[in-house]
Each structure stands twice: as structure tokens, then as C-alpha cells.
């Protein structure tokens, strides 16, 4: 099951010369057995696109949408089930990863080369992993040094026409049968100033980024497993208007600048033991994170520090036989936030101890996973999180899945909405309370989903058809109200807020080695703002996707992705200074295309060349009021489409030994 922190390891002596190449399988496979619907995104899928970091790894996955948060910072946010990135739980081998202050920026802290694969699930997940994720879970697996398939050295270098250079290195070292370690290094620089839309602002900020990690694995006698690791991140961004120089004074008349500096240090450990009966095991996950960020948007500053500690103890056993698995455990999640926005300080400490139990019933055609968590939040009090997953397989290749559950989280209104800081909107918290989290309540949502997957064979080639529907209902939400062009208002939900999400997807091997994937998504996301029940801004109701992948016998790979994104609602904005406030509008629908060609030799050396936004489709004037960034109407956050034009990139991947 997903939540076990342990890796079963076969310790018989291996012929190290042999490398096992997995048989040709779909690069993304849908698990048919697990009651929780998981899409497994393998290395083959990740290699289809430039995939420089996690935020760019979903180009060929229709379940996740990616969009820029604004036209200045260069950061992208994911969206699942029509809900923004922070509603998705992002974990690294089941330890919470990008959350809190790093809910949006954290996706750039995992370089693509480090990733072995990912599991993506929609809806609320298992109680074992916490109570926060409502839209889904993205669990990232890093390369494992004890895996025989892993080469000792992975080297990757990347260069794009838009001026981004990147280098990655992964070194795996199996010291002996029991002990192994790997080192991960990443360096990146955006060194070219570009303004393709001629609005006077850099399309992407200049940046320097350095990330390093080291982890150790020890498989002891009596089936003990110990794992420990550290990771460190340094990021420096400078953007805004072309003439802006880092550190210069920000005031009317001087160039408007954007700066973001981040440092993050993490340490984690996992201890586990599998008992004589392999269905019984116990594991402990520990994680400590220190994250500091410093941002300047014109003459407004946002500074924040987060200290986080997580511990999760899981005991797995069975009742009479392995068809009845029981997991029991306890966890603690503690976060200390210290934020400052335009001089006002916001601090809070959250300590949430809790306990959980999960029962899994496995029969041939029916699986049920029922979980219950009880947590006590030091600020908000006690709450209960029930989760239910059902899987029914009427035939070998047909599966129905149903899920339902509750999720709760504390909205970090500043860190999650940094995109709106790139404007002259006042960030206004509407509350009469003090204390709590910015004087606001926690977000609580219920999610219900149903999925049907049918695998088939047509003309002796494999295919799969999948449909799903999810409904998310917020009992409380921190509404981010953009209806007034001069403000962003945050307030507790009064009324209803919900998201309907429908997805239909078809995967089929059209001819041998030519894979086709087509998908259609429909979203209906509405919130009761103070001005009434309206569509959530900047979310397209209709989206279509198609991807073609072809591989030849001499290892040439061709990948082509085309997306059609429908119209989005844009709330009223303060247009050019002499026009004033315009009413609500709708963005046009548009088509976006990406393609990539690669050639590999002996599965060891690969060269790739690709293009993003091949139609060179760009928003005209993405920044409202760009001519006068210190005036009231300046707003770089109303982004509904690509901010940059065509991008050509090339790189190589070299696996040694």
C-alpha cells in the first residue's frame, strides 16, 4: 500500500553488470487493484517534456493543469479538480513536501532528474497521510540508491532559447549490501532578459537557484530499515521592469522591481521494521523544515519564515488473515509561521497531534478502505476526518471506484496568493477577530468522487478508457475576492462554494509504438462572493487535451501535445488610466502546443530538442497598467494564458555505469 514507509529489499547477491530494462509499458499507468485510484507517472512520461522541475512535469498529464500565477514572478501553480495547488497534498515518499509557505513555490524545489516516478491520486486520500489534501495527492518518488536499475551517475544539462540554463547531477552509491547513499545536485540560472510582449516588464525574472540533497539507506538484520536525508535550497529572483536593478529604491518614477529570495533547509528520517510475519510492520516518519522567504513587489514587501515539524507513527497488522489489514497510528504536525506584509506582522503556531485507524478489506472483486482520524488543533480545536474508498471490479478489466472524505487545512493567505502582490491591489482581511490564523477560520471541505476505468484491447493493441467525476463542497473556505479591482479581500465563506469536475480520458496504442492520449475536462467552480454566486475567476470551464508519442526501433522518440483551453471569467479591472474601470470580461479560448524529439544510445545517453508554445500564442498586454506601475490600476495577476512566446530548448541526459 502507498503509505508503508518501508521498501522490501531482496538481499541476494546480484550480478551488478546486469541492468533490468522494464518491458515496454505505458508511461503512465492506471492502477487497477488499489481502491484509491492512482495514476502512476513513470520516468518515460517525465522524459516526454522538458520537465525541469516538478511544476513542469505535468505537461503530458491531463489530470493536472499548470498556469502562471502572474506575469512577473515566473512561478506556476498547479490545479486539480478545478481547485488551486494548495488544495493538493504534495508529498515526497509520503512525507509532506510543498505546503505552508512553499505551497506554490515548492514545486520548483524538486528537479525532474531527481524523480524516479510519481503517483497521482484525486480526491481525499488515506487518513495515514494526514487531513489536509482535498483535491488529491501527488506523491513523488526520488531515485533510490539501492535500486539495481539505477546507474551510478545521472547527468543532465539543459539550455533554452529564453535564456535558462540548468544542470543536474545524481550520484548513487551502493556501499555494500546494506548501506547505500545518493547525492543530488541542481543548479539553474535564468540569465537572459526578455520582454517578448513589449510591455516594459521582464517576462521571466532573472534567477539563480541551487538545490542539494543527500540521503542514506540502511537495511539491517531482522528487517530493520533506516533512512535519513537532508536537503537545502537557495533561490534568488530579480524581475519587474527592464531597467530595474537589484536592491534599488522602489518609488514612483523609479523602475518597478520584483525580488524573491528563498532559503529552505530540511532534514528527515524514516525508521521501520517488518516483523516475522511480513504483513505486520511498524514505521516512523520524521521531518523538520526551516523555510525563509523575502519578497518585494514594487514598494511592498512580504517576508516570512516557517518552521515545521512532522512525525508519523504507523503500525500495520492484519485481522485473522491478510484480507483484513488494519493500520493504526499517531501523528503530530507543528508549524510556526512568522510573516510580515507591508509592515504588519502575522504570527501563529499550530500544533496538531492526532491518531488514526484505517481498515482495508480485500476481496477479489471488492476492496474497501475506511479510515478515521481524530486530531486536536491548538487553535481550532478537535476535529474528525473520515475517509472512505471503494473499489468494485465487475470484470477483470473494468473497475469502479468511489471515494468520499473530509479535509481541513489552514489557508496561508499571503504565501498562496503571492501572485496578487504583483499589483497595486490592497490585500484586505475582512474579520473582526484576532488571533486564529489572520483572524480567519480553517478551511473545511468534503469531496466525493466516482471513477470508472475500462481497459481494452482493439486489434491486439492495448487501450484504456477512464471517466471520473468529483464534487468538492466547502463548508468553510477563505474566499479570495477579486471582484473589486483595487482590492483582494479575504474572508470566511458565507454561503456556498463548490467545484464540479468531470474528466474523460482515452489511451490507446494506435499502431505499434504510437501512443495516443485524448482527454476532455469540464469544470464548474463557483463561490458565493459578497457580490453573489459567481464562477471562480481564471478557471476555464472546458479543456481538451491530446498527446501523441512515438518511439522507433533505433530509439528515436517523438512527442507532441496540443491543448485547447476554453474561455475564463475575468473580473472587472481598472484598465488603462484614462479608460477607468471596465466590467467583467471573458478571455478568449486558445490552443497551445508543445513537441519534443529525442534520440538515445544504449539507454545511457540521450539528446533531446523540444519546443514549448509552438503557436507563439501570447496574451496581449498581460500586465494591466504596465505603463504606470505605481498607479492604482496596475495589476499583473489577471493571467489567463501564456505570458511568453515560443521557447526552444535542448539538453542531454547521460547515465554512467
Amino acid at each position, binding site marked *: 500500500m502507498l503509505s508503508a514507509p518501508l521498501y522490501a529489499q531482496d538481499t541476494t547477491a546480484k550480478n551488478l553488470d546486469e541492468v533490468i530494462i522494464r*518491458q515496454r509499458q505505458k508511461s503512465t499507468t492506471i492502477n487497477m487493484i488499489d481502491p484509491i485510484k492512482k495514476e502512476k507517472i513513470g520516468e518515460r512520461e517525465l522524459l516526454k517534456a522538458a520537465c525541469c522541475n516538478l511544476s513542469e512535469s505535468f505537461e503530458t498529464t491531463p489530470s493536472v493543469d499548470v498556469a502562471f500565477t502572474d506575469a512577473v514572478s515566473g512561478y506556476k501553480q498547479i490545479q486539480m479538480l478545478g481547485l488551486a495547488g494548495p488544495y493538493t497534498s504534495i508529498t515526497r515518499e509520503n512525507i509532506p513536501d510543498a505546503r505552508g509557505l512553499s505551497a506554490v513555490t515548492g514545486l520548483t524545489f524538486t528537479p525532474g532528474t531527481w524523480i524516479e516516478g510519481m503517483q497521482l491520486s484525486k480526491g481525499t486520500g488515506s487518513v495515514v497521510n494526514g487531513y489536509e489534501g482535498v483535491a488529491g495527492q501527488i506523491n513523488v518518488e526520488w531515485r533510490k540508491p539501492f535500486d539495481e536499475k539505477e546507474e551510478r551517475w545521472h547527468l543532465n544539462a539543459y539550455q533554452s532559447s529564453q535564456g535558462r540554463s540548468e544542470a543536474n547531477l545524481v550520484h548513487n552509491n551502493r556501499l555494500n549490501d546494506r548501506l547505500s547513499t545518493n547525492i543530488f545536485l541542481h543548479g539553474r540560472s535564468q540569465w537572459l532578459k526578455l520582454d517578448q510582449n513589449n510591455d516594459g516588464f521582464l517576462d521571466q525574472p532573472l534567477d539563480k537557484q541551487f538545490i542539494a540533497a543527500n540521503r542514506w539507506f540502511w537495511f539491517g538484520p531482522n528487517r530493520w530499515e533506516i533512512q535519513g536525508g537532508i536537503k537545502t535550497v537557495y533561490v534568488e529572483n530579480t524581475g519587474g521592469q527592464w531597467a530595474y536593478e537589484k536592491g534599488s529604491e522602489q518609488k514612483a518614477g523609479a523602475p518597478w522591481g520584483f525580488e524573491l529570495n528563498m532559503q529552505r533547509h530540511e532534514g528527515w528520517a524514516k525508521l521501520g521494521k517488518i516483523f516475522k510475519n511480513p504483513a505486520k510492520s511498524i514505521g516512523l516518519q520524521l521531518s523538520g523544515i526551516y523555510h525563509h522567504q523575502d519578497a518585494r513587489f514594487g514598494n511592498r514587501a512580504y517576508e516570512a519564515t516557517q518552521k515545521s515539524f512532522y512525525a508519523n507513527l504507523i503500525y500495520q497488522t492484519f485481522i485473522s488473515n491478510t484480507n483484513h489489514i488494519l493500520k493504526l497510528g499517531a501523528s503530530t504536525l507543528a508549524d510556526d509561521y512568522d510573516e510580515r506584509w507591508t509592515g504588519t506582522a502575522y504570527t501563529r503556531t499550530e500544533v496538531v497531534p492526532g491518531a488514526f485507524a484505517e481498515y482495508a478489506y480485500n476481496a477479489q472483486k471488492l476492496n474497501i478502505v475506511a479510515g478515521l482520524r481524530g486530531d486536536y488543533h491548538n487553535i481550532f480545536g478537535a476535529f474528525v476526518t473520515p475517509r472512505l474508498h471503494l473499489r468494485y471490479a465487475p470484470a477483470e478489466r473494468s473497475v469502479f471506484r468511489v471515494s468520499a472524505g473530509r479535509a481541513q487545512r489552514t489557508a496561508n493567505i499571503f504565501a498562496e496568493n503571492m501572485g496578487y502582490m504583483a499589483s497595486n491591489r490592497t490585500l484586505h482581511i475582512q474579520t473582526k477577530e484576532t488571533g486564529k490564523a489572520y483572524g480567519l477560520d480553517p478551511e473545511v471541505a468534503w469531496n466525493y468522487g466516482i471513477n470508472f476505468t475500462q481497459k481494452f484491447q482493439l486489434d491486439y493493441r492495448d487501450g484504456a478508457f477512464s471517466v471520473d467525476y468529483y464534487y468538492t463542497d466547502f463548508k468553510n473556505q477563505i474566499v479570495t475576492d477579486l471582484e473589486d479591482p483595487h482590492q483582494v479581500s479575504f474572508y470566511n465563506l458565507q454561503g456556498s462554494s463548490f467545484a464540479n469536475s468531470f474528466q474523460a480520458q482515452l489511451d490507446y496504442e494506435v499502431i505499434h509504438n504510437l501512443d495516443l492520449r485524448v482527454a476532455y475536462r469540464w469544470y464548474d467552480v463557483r463561490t458565493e462572493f459578497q457580490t453573489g454566486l459567481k464562477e471562480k475567476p481564471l478557471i476555464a470551464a472546458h479543456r481538451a487535451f491530446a498527446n501523441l508519442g512515438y518511439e522507433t526501433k533505433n530509439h528515436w522518440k517523438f512527442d507532441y501535445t496540443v491543448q485547447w483551453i476554453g474561455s475564463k471569467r475575468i473580473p472587472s479591472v481598472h484598465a488603462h488610466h484614462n479608460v477607468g474601470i471596465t466590467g467583467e470580461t471573458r478571455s478568449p479560448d486558445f490552443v497551445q502546443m508543445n513537441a519534443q524529439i529525442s534520440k538515445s544510445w544504449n539507454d545511457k545517453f540521450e539528446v533531446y530538442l523540444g519546443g514549448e508554445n509552438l503557436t507563439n500564442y501570447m496574451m496581449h498586454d498581460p500586465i494591466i497598467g504596465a505603463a504606470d506601475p505605481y498607479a492604482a490600476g496596475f495589476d499583473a495577476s489577471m493571467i489567463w494564458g501564456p505570458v511568453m512566446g515560443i521557447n526552444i530548448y535542448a539538453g542531454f541526459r547521460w547515465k554512467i555505469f
Partner: protein
Amino acid sequence: MKRFILLLFISVFSISSFAQSNIKTETFKVEGNCGMCKKRIEESAYIKGVKRAEWNKESQILTVIYRSSRTTLEDIAQSIAKAGHSSEKAESSEKDYNRLPTCCQYKTQSCDH
């Protein structure tokens, strides 16, 4: 009109059944060494006329579905032999066998998994 429809139905049915009887599913043993060779064996089996090829590493049996009007079992075995894997239907030449990566050389190496 009725007779025309009947004739049409019969001819369509017989064309499709003729096409169907063309498709054969056969198995034969192909020598190979574990998982690494599976992909090579299967890919080399995909010559013109072959619909599907699956090689089981435990039993060493290759199941191939092909159109008998387009190709024969011997042609498929020859293609696999050219890639370095001998079978009960075709022997691999020394030159082709030696081109296999060391661990795949099934005559001398054994598989641990």
C-alpha cells in the same frame, strides 16, 4: 431490396471472417536471459504482419499473433535470430549473438532473477 441486403450482409461477413481466419496465434521457445532481453526479443518480433508479441521470461515461450497472409513463423524467428536470440525455429549466427550485451548472452550467463 431484401436480397441485396442479404447478399451485402453475407459478403461483408465472409470478408471479415476471411480476414479473421488469417490471424494466427502461435507460440515457440526463444532463448533469452531474463527481463533485459524481453524488450529486445519482443521488438525484433514486430516485423510486418505481426500484431502482438509477448515473451515470458520464465517459460521462455514467445506468443505471437500475426497475419498469416503477410508473414510466417519462420520469418519472425529469423528476425529474432538476427537480433541475437536463437529459437527452436532459427539459429542465431555467431556474429549476431556476440552483438548482445554481455549479461544477455544466454549461452554462458545465467539469470539471477
